C-alpha cells in the first residue's frame, strides 16, 4: 500500500522509525525529507497525497501546531483518503484535536514495541485502500509560508527590492518563524536578507528584532538557533596594556590632541553657523478627523509615528515647496 506520512520535522527521528516499520510491513512510504520549498515542492506534496492510498498523520504537539501538516491532512480528508492518526510523541488530549481528527481512532505508537507494531499493521489493513478521487477535485491548499522557496528566490534576486517588497518579505518571514518546520531555514533567510546591499535601515531593524525574538522565543530551544543569529559583534580594541609608552608619549599626545580638539570645536561652530536655522514656530498638530465620519484608522488621533513616514523619495526642498504651495492655495481660497 502506498502511504503518505505527514509529520513535523522536529519529530524526524521517530518518523524514521515509523517509516521503517511500515516498510517492514510491506508498504511503500513517502514523506518529504527535503528542506527545499516553494510552490513546486508543495505541488509535489499535494500530488503525493492525491496518489497515496493511505494518509498517516504522525501526531505530536508539534505536528498539531504545524500549518503545513494541518493543510496536508485536511486536503487528504477532502480527497476521501483514509486518514490514520498515529501518536508518536507527547501526551495529547483527544479534546485538543481538531474536530475532524477527534472522531478518528488513533494508534498509540509512542512506545515502538512489537505489540504497537501489530496494532499498527491491523489498523492499516482495516482502513484499506481509498476509493477513486472525487471529481471535481477539491481546491488545493495554498503553499504554507514555511515552504520558503519563493522567499528564498526573492531574497536572492539580483534586482533591487523596493521598500514595500522588503516590508512584505519581513511579514512573510515573521509568519514563517511560527511554522516550526523551517525555523532554521527562516533564520538563514533572515541572515541572507540582512546581507543584501539594498537592505533598508528600518527593515534591517525589524529583521534583527526577529532574530532576537527567535532566539528568546520557542526557537531558542533549537540547538541550531545560535547559528541563526547575527555574527558576534567584534570586541572593541583593547587599550595598550603597557603603560610606559603611553606615559612617554603623553606630552606629545596632549599638544596634538589640543590642536585636534580645537579644530573639531571650530569646525562644529562653523557648521552650526552655516546650517539652516530651525524653526521656532510651534508645531501645529494635524487636525482631527475622528468621530463618526473618521475612518477606522482614526489616524489623526494617533501620536506621531516613531519615524517619519516615507514620502516617495521627496527631498526636503520639494516637501517645503509643496507645503508652501499648499499654504498659498489655502490663502487664496479663504
Amino acid at each position, binding site marked *: 500500500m502506498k502511504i503518505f506520512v505527514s509529520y513535523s520535522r522536529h519529530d524526524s527521528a521517530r518518523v524514521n522509525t515509523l517509516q521503517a516499520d511500515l516498510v517492514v510491513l510491506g508498504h511503500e512510504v513517502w514523506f518529504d525529507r527535503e528542506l527545499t520549498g516553494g510552490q513546486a515542492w508543495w505541488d509535489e506534496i499535494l500530488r503525493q497525497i492525491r496518489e497515496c492510498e493511505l494518509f498517516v498523520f504522525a501526531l505530536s504537539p508539534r505536528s498539531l501546531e504545524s500549518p503545513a501538516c494541518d493543510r496536508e491532512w485536511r486536503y487528504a480528508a477532502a480527497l476521501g483518503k483514509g486518514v490514520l492518526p498515529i501518536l508518536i510523541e507527547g501526551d495529547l488530549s483527544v479534546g485538543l484535536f481538531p474536530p475532524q481528527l477527534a472522531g478518528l481512532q488513533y494508534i498509540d505508537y509512542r512506545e515502538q514495541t512489537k505489540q504497537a507494531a501489530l496494532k499498527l499493521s491491523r489498523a492499516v489493513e482495516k482502513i484499506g485502500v481509498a476509493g477513486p478521487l472525487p471529481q471535481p477535485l477539491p481546491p488545493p491548499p495554498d503553499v504554507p509560508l514555511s515552504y520558503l522557496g519563493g522567499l528564498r528566490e526573492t531574497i536572492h534576486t539580483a534586482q533591487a527590492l523596493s521598500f514595500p517588497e522588503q516590508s512584505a518579505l519581513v511579514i512573510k518571514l515573521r509568519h514563517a518563524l511560527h511554522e516550526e518546520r523551517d525555523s532554521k531555514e527562516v533564520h538563514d533567510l533572515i541572515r541572507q536578507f540582512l546581507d543584501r546591499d539594498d537592505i533598508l535601515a528600518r527593515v534591517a531593524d525589524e529583521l534583527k528584532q526577529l532574530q532576537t525574538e527567535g532566539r528568546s522565543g520557542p526557537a531558542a530551544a533549537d540547538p541550531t538557533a545560535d547559528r541563526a543569529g547575527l555574527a558576534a559583534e567584534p570586541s572593541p580594541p583593547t587599550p595598550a596594556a603597557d603603560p610606559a609608552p603611553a606615559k612617554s608619549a603623553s606630552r606629545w599626545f596632549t599638544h596634538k590632541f589640543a590642536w585636534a580638539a580645537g579644530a573639531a570645536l571650530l569646525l562644529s561652530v562653523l557648521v*552650526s553657523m552655516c*546650517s539652516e536655522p530651525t524653526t521656532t514656530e510651534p508645531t501645529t*498638530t494635524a487636525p482631527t478627523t475622528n468621530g463618526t465620519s473618521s475612518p*477606522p*484608522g482614526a*489616524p489623526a488621533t494617533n501620536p506621531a509615528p*516613531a519615524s517619519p513616514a516615507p514620502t*516617495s523619495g521627496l527631498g526636503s526642498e520639494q*516637501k517645503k515647496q509643496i507645503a508652501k504651495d499648499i499654504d498659498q492655495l489655502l490663502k*487664496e481660497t479663504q
Partner: protein
Amino acid sequence: MTGDSYRLRGLRITRLGVVTAWLAVLSPSVVQAQAAVGAEGADQVDVDFENALARLHQAAQAGHLAARDKLAALAHQGIPAAQFRLGQLHYESQAGAGGDRGLAEAIAWWLKASSNGYGRASMALANLYDHGEAGVAADAERALHYYELTVVQGWVNPTSQTRLARALLRNGQGKDCTRIGNLLRAASATGFPEALQLLNSDAGYKALCGP
C-alpha cells in the same frame, strides 16, 4: 601645583592640557548636538509637510474644490501622504453622495499609499478589515497582515501596537507570547487603556499566555 602645570600620579599636566581635555570632552558633544539639530530639522520638514497636507485635506472636506483638486493632483503624483489623505476624503464622503463608490475609492487610495510604505494607510486598512463595514467583510487574516505592515512601515504608536497584539492573539498566535507581551507593555507604558485592559484582563493576554 607648580607654575602652569599640575602633577597627578607622576603625569605632568599643563594648563593647556586641562583646557584641551575639556575641549575634547565638549567638542564631540557639540558635534552630536549639531547632528541632532540637523535631524530635528529634517523631521520638522516632514511635520510641516504632513501638516500642510492635513490643512489641505481639511479645506477639501469643507468643500473647497481647488483644495480637493490639489490633493488629488498630489496623490496622482504618487505622494503617499496625499494618497492616504485622498483615500480618507473618499471614505468620509461615502456617507453622502457616492456611497459604496466612496469606500471603494478610499480602499484603492489607501492600498496605493500602503504599498508606497505609508503606515497610516496600512493602519486604516487594518482597522477596516478588522471590524468590517458595509461592503467590506471582516477578514482577520488580512487585518493581521496590515497591522504587521503598519508597524514595519514605522507607524508605531500605542494604537498600532495594541491592535497588532490583539490581532496576533486572535489569530491563534498566542505562542508568540514574548512579542505580544512586549507590544502590550510598550503600549501600556503610555497609559493606553485598550492595552492595559488587554494585558490585565483574564480574557486577554493572560488567557493565552498566562499571568
